[in-house]
């Protein structure tokens, strides 16, 4: 792999790698538990019309986890600092899975600042628990076999990672990504019990994009999340699982572009 020099934003407590690509309306992209998405075809497809800003969460892609970090709320406040440090105007805030949870938390805090963010996009996001104690609303990705995980994550499993072709270094980065993913999402698992009582505060147009065959968080879960956000709508992409931006990048870019341009 060629390594590209990544600019870093220094914040109090952490240095955040930040990749920028394309030009146009700004989109702050918050990745999920699988790590940065700046290299994926959907990002290239969007870079003609948008300037994508891709920060890397601490702990992912080989970056250190700040000593005081215990969970996603630490990330929320780190990103409030990051957002203050960026020159954002009329931007779109977009998050994938765990990054969608993060985006929803940020949007529920940053109300009244629509000049900064004017739209929110949540892709196969976690963050709430719609069901009761005995309901497994979100698949327990940390207790699933590799086989089960592939099946739940992908519509077409050939998109899944092939560990056999990874170098030792790549495997270690993947293992480190999992450490960070677990840190941010372990308990309460993949959600903040308080968030559902705060989502009503979100005051910007919100679109949920979902893979029809997502086995981690189903479209029904997405509908429950949508119903908690005022005026939110939802687009379901067929022939896609938990990562519609990977399995259907063209359709994903089309739906995103339509919403973001409107």
């Amino acid at each position, binding site marked *: 792999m060629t390594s590209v020099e990544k600019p870093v934003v220094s914040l109090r407590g952490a240095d955040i790698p930040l990749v920028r690509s394309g030009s146009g309306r700004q989109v702050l992209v918050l990745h999920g538990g699988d790590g940065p998405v700046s290299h994926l075809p959907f990002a290239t497809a969007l870079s003609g019309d948008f300037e994508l800003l891709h920060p890397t969460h601490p702990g992912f892609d080989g970056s250190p986890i700040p000593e005081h970090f215990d969970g996603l709320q630490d990330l929320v406040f780190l990103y409030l600092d990051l957002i203050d440090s960026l020159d954002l105007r009329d931007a779109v805030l977009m998050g994938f899975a765990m990054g969608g949870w993060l985006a929803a938390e940020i949007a529920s805090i940053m109300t009244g600042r629509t000049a900064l963010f004017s739209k929110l996009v949540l892709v196969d996001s976690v963050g709430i628990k719609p069901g009761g104690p005995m309901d497994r609303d979100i698949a327990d990705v940390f207790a699933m076999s590799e086989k089960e995980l592939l099946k739940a994550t992908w519509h077409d499993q050939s998109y899944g990672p092939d560990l056999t072709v990874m170098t030792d270094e790549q*495997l*270690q980065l993947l293992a480190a990504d*999992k450490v960070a993913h*677990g840190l941010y999402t372990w308990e309460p698992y993949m959600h903040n019990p308080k968030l559902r009582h705060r989502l009503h505060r979100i005051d910007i147009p919100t679109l949920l994009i979902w893979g029809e065959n997502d086995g981690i968080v189903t479209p029904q879960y997405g509908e429950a999340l949508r119903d908690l956000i005022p005026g939110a709508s939802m687009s379901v992409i067929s022939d896609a699982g938990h990562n519609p931006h990977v399995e259907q990048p063209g359709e994903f870019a089309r739906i995103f572009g339509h919403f973001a341009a409107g």
Partner: protein
Amino acid sequence: MRAWFFTEDAYPYLPDADSYESVRVSLPNKHFDPEVGADLYNMYLDMWCAADEMGLNIMNNEHHQTPTCMVPAAPIMLGILARETKNARLLILGNPVSNRSQPVRVAEEMALVDVLSRGRLECGFVRGVPYEIAPANVYPYRGTEKLWEAHDLITKAWTHHEGPFNFEGRWFHARQVNIWPRPYQQPHPPVWVTMGSGGSAAQVAQRGHIGAVFLAGYPRIRDIFDGYRQAYQEAHHQETPVDRLAYCALVSVGDTEKEGLDGAEKLLWYMTSNKVAPQFANPPGYHAPAMAATMMRGNQSGAGLPTATTVAEQMARGNLFAGTPDQVFEQIKSFYEYCGGFGNLMMMSQAGFMTFDETLSSMKLFSQEVYPRLKELTASYDPGVMQEIRASRPSVENVDISSIASEFAR
């Protein structure tokens, strides 16, 4: 040398290994027959009581959601033994304090056992094996830091006698700590902590606690014990007393070599029945990424297969001592000299289908014919002489750190 009789109290009647994904965490408890379980609990308690009568000390532990160890609450078994035994020291190794939310409760349980046994408790703290993470639902990242914070709170609770004190740490909070009872032993029961590397050993040594190692064998024992000795010297400006180090191995003694080896075959159940699904053996945050990556690589072929091993292999590694009393003594002495000495031998002397009579026969031979010689060995321990002996033994370099050793490191 102090010897500790140990069994994990297995429920050995498992379904065909091909019929389940993992013996840990997810094996349905419909396979547990309470009638059989009641017989087994009583048999294991009888074994421990017999060990007490033979002059051996007692060690117990706990695991969760697994038939390999039927005890999910070691303090309860320890409470029974505090009452039923007379002389044995009672070692719990240990309390999984990284995974337990209330260290003060642990301090209370241990104080109770110490008082009830009139000061026979030896209290271990462990981080726990990776497959304890799912049952505990506790994120394992920084588990070692949590262990030491719990340790600090517990030892303070044991030794503070002037009314409530305050503890608001990174992980644990208790603002009015004033335990009743307080421990019988003063200032507190001896503390044991498990060690898996030279680095983790240093933290134990700095506090002067007993450092315990499980099945590290020849390949890793020097690194760990050396780490302890070096840190002990730096912290306390003296040689490590031999009683500060402990090693756990499988032990089977027979009247004949064949009898001892037959027993060893039965003990091997402990290793060969440990079919663990990769997601439970390698949860995120437990292992450092380099180790986790190695396990991910290993899991690509033969995921979750029972650990294949042999008596000969485990004897060669120093994880299993078996044979006649003379042979077992020589094997332990060889390992003892190789690693520079230790004062506590924890013996897994029962596992799987090994019967009450077989276990007692083995332990009787040990206590009568091996134990006295081991006691002489440590009584004549001299750090200088030991280092000379040790220096004459080259390091074992031809044994790789296989999954066996790492899997069973507590």
